[in-house]
């Protein structure tokens, strides 16, 4: 028998804030109004004012609020607790130092519309980060405006479109196909679509690489605007034909967009710009360790060739040398070829600060060291699990390694079950069922932030689960056993979605 779940333990049964609310409780205090009070009706006519007294909004004291969020926080797995090997997500150590940097009052209290001369520190931070990202990618044009990876994709793909429109004029209309490998992340086709492109899918080879022949075939149609490629790709394998791939696309008149989600395998080792890539987005919330925050904020800077630079979003952060040689920084919106703005203000500045702190803390050696350690960790896991789990591709993995449930599923234990059982061993599961091209995919990315002993524990847990799948399949199929709640019925949830609390709910669940 397993532990009773969501037990009588009060911290395990924390209700919703609305259910906890008690009329009359207060969790705040404001200074008394220090100006003469104007009768409300003089300020705003009644028909413009709320009449509902915000009914339903919770009323709680400060300790109620603190306990509520502290309690529910304990239901989360998190990086500071243990290994979080989500493939493609790069869940590395989130430095507390970077959090401190982002909270320095001179940054945190700075209004985005403050005159540039009074915001030189912030502009310098952005400029410097741009310079470092240009060096790391080998692509000199950088915009920090995009708020996440997908946003960076959208930006990059729109730049390709703008570039082609300018280069080809009317002729560009015939060039509206974006090629995307079947292993790509869903955001790639979605971003391409949003930019008005038609998506055509490129097959992967049995080696897990982009099929060059297929690419050549598709390029032959001359309607190709570009290619969106992830490298290392989502199977964790470096596209070793990358130069040839770029050549084919360029020869066909297209441009190459690289999805930089997997840059943790390359920083300091190889640069997309040197491979022939025209534009890339980076995920600062992956490679540069800005915290994922339970789903954001992210930051997805775009880096491009000099040729594409005029098309980057405005405003750009630029540097001017003063008379005395001192630098000053400015925002420049005078870029007639720019695709325009993709976001109000200048991007997720708080994340720029953290990423810059990451880069400066690592320094030139540390950045490369991190890449090596990340790839080595993946290789270590690969070696440890090779005999137990099916590996769809034989190429040596870069920073993440792909397995499948082929062997285990014969006995009924599928990827989902293995993932859930890992929870009982104290690990966050790997990414599952992605990339879509591999059945029962398990994509494991340890990152550089995990030590040898914990990696070995992970390998041991996976092997143990494989054994359990044979000897005691129910144990695996009903996992997890150590959590507050069991597997949730997601299908039912989607069939009759309840997306918010309503007073009726209260009665139903009390």
């Amino acid at each position: 028998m397993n532990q009773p779940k969501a037990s009588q333990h009060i911290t395990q049964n924390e209700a919703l804030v609305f259910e906890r609310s008690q009329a009359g409780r207060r969790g705040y205090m404001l200074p008394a109004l220090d100006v003469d009070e104007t009768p409300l009706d003089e300020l705003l006519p009644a028909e413009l004012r709320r009449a509902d007294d915000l009914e339903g909004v919770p009323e709680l004291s400060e300790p109620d609020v603190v306990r509520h969020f502290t309690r529910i926080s304990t239901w989360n797995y998190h990086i500071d607790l243990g290994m979080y090997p989500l493939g493609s997500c790069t869940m590395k150590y989130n430095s507390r130092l970077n959090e401190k940097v982002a909270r320095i009052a001179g940054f945190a209290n700075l209004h985005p519309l403050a005159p540039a001369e009074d915001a030189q520190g912030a502009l310098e931070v952005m400029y410097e980060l741009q310079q470092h990202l240009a060096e790391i990618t080998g692509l000199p044009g950088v915009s920090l405006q995009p708020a996440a990876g997908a946003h960076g994709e959208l930006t990059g793909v729109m730049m390709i479109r703008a570039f082609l429109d300018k280069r080809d004029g009317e002729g560009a209309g015939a060039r509206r196909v974006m090629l995307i490998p079947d292993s790509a992340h869903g955001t790639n086709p979605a971003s391409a679509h949003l930019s008005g492109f038609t998506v055509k899918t490129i097959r992967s080879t049995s080696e897990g690489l982009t099929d060059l022949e297929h690419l050549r075939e598709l390029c032959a149609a001359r309607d190709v605007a570009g290619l969106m490629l992830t490298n290392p790709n989502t199977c964790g394998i470096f596209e070793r034909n990358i130069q040839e791939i770029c050549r084919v696309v360029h020869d066909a008149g297209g441009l190459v967009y690289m999805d930089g989600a997997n840059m943790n395998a390359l920083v300091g080792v190889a640069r997309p710009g040197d491979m022939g890539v025209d534009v890339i987005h980076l995920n600062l919330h992956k490679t540069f360790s800005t915290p994922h925050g339970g789903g954001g904020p992210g930051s997805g800077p775009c880096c491009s060739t000099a040729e594409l630079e005029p098309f980057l979003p405005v405003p750009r952060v630029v540097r001017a040398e003063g008379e005395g040689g001192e630098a000053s920084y400015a925002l420049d919106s005078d870029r007639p070829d720019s695709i325009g703005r993709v976001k109000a203000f200048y991007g997720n500045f708080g994340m720029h600060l953290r990423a810059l702190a990451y880069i400066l803390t690592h320094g030139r050696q540390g950045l490369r060291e991190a890449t090596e350690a990340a790839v080595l960790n993946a290789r270590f896991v690969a070696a440890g699990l090779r005999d137990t789990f099916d590996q769809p591709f034989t190429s040596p993995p870069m920073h993440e390694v792909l397995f499948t449930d082929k062997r285990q599923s014969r006995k009924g234990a599928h990827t989902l079950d293995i993932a859930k059982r890992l929870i009982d061993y104290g690990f966050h599961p790997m990414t599952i069922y992605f990339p879509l091209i591999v059945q029962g995919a398990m994509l494991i990315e340890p990152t550089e932030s995990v030590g040898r002993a914990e990696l070995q524990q992970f390998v041991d847990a996976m092997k143990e689960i494989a054994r359990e799948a044979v000897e005691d399949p129910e144990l695996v199929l009903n996992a997890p056993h150590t959590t507050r709640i069991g597997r949730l019925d997601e299908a039912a949830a989607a069939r009759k979605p309840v997306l918010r609390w309503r007073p009726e709910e209260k009665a139903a669940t009390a």
Partner: protein
Amino acid sequence: MRYIPNSPEERQEMLGSVGLDTADALFDSIPAEVRLARPLEVPEALSEIELLARFERTAARNAAARRPNFLGAGAYSHYSPTIVDALIQRSEFFTAYTPYQPEISQGTLQAIFEFQTLVCQLTGMDVANASMYDGSTAMAEAVLMAERVTRRSRVVVSSGVHPEYLKVAETYVAHAGIELVRAEVDEATGRTLAGDDVVDDKVAAFVVQSPNFFGGVEDLKAAAERAHAAGALLVVVVTESASLGLLRSPGECGADVVVAEGQSFGVPLSYGGPYVGLFATREKFARQLPGRLVGVAYDREGRRGFVLTLATREQHIRREKATSNICTNEGLIALAATIYMTALGRKGLQEVAAQCAQKAAHARRQIATLEGFALPHSAPVFNEFVVRAPAPAEEVLRRLASEHQVTGGLALSRYYAERPNDLLVCVTETNTRAEIDALVSGLRNVTAP
């Protein structure tokens, strides 16, 4: 490198155990020609002491962060209770990923469910998503959604919408076959003009911001009638979410989609981001929402939990047919806003809004009495208003800053060449009477003949 657990010696041993001699060999699958043969041109590593000293020095160059501030225009100085930042700094929250594994992500999931509900309550809508990047991209997504829902391709956007939001929308629709048309703002009232000549039956949506960029509270009921009469959706944009504590909710006025910037809910200014976009709509459009949604689910024993749901709208399932390309959103900022809204609660959100309105009214009254100053627009305002100065606004503001250590507002010439003397002043509950007095006397001094 202190963030990397395995020491160089351990890594050497591990290399051996996977059959390699050198770290370089890890990268054998990368062709030599594209390998970087030199170290990156990035500075040498800095220690904590050096790094902090450096960033402190840099931050000190942001003089504007130290002054009393009357800038608003899409980003607002509100007070955030200490517990907000303390709670989001629990590593349980800030280091977690998107809650794809619900059994070990219930903290994040329950908080998002609470966020969605609070957004619905404040906007007066039925459903809200788990967040967008910010207010500007939320508005752009609303425009795209209106096209999906109505299958019409023209969208009328009020000129009272934040000019940067307008620019973002222009970028987003550039290749979506959507035409953006402006509805002008009446100079006398400072409210959007929209006759049925503008919002006609080709129009997918009528997009109105309230309070608008010039501070005016719009007549959203009238806008809703206009839109609905034309078979269009009313999309309401809110950049100053604190106003929702006082103003009639867009939902009650008839909005079909409400998008808002949630920065006012306890999120630091941080030079423009990260902020959080709110996106709410009617029940019937739930499956057209962009972004993530959390819903109730039950386990086999009937225990209530929360999961990401209706994922078939999303890019990881639907790929190019998704309702949006958004993946990572603004989770932690949405959490901060949730904690803020919960801590302030029913009474506090109203009190903040009332104080903003009262203090702005006070400031406005005082400025109106100044020689040579005028208030060009007559519409009621919440906490922002346009002031027409007797001199170029940029110059006035520069002198206010240097001579009186006050950031007096925004020179509207930044966006509108035709408004050289106008400044947009914003007053919140954080501005003391002494600060307001300093602003007023500062304005008097720097414009004295």
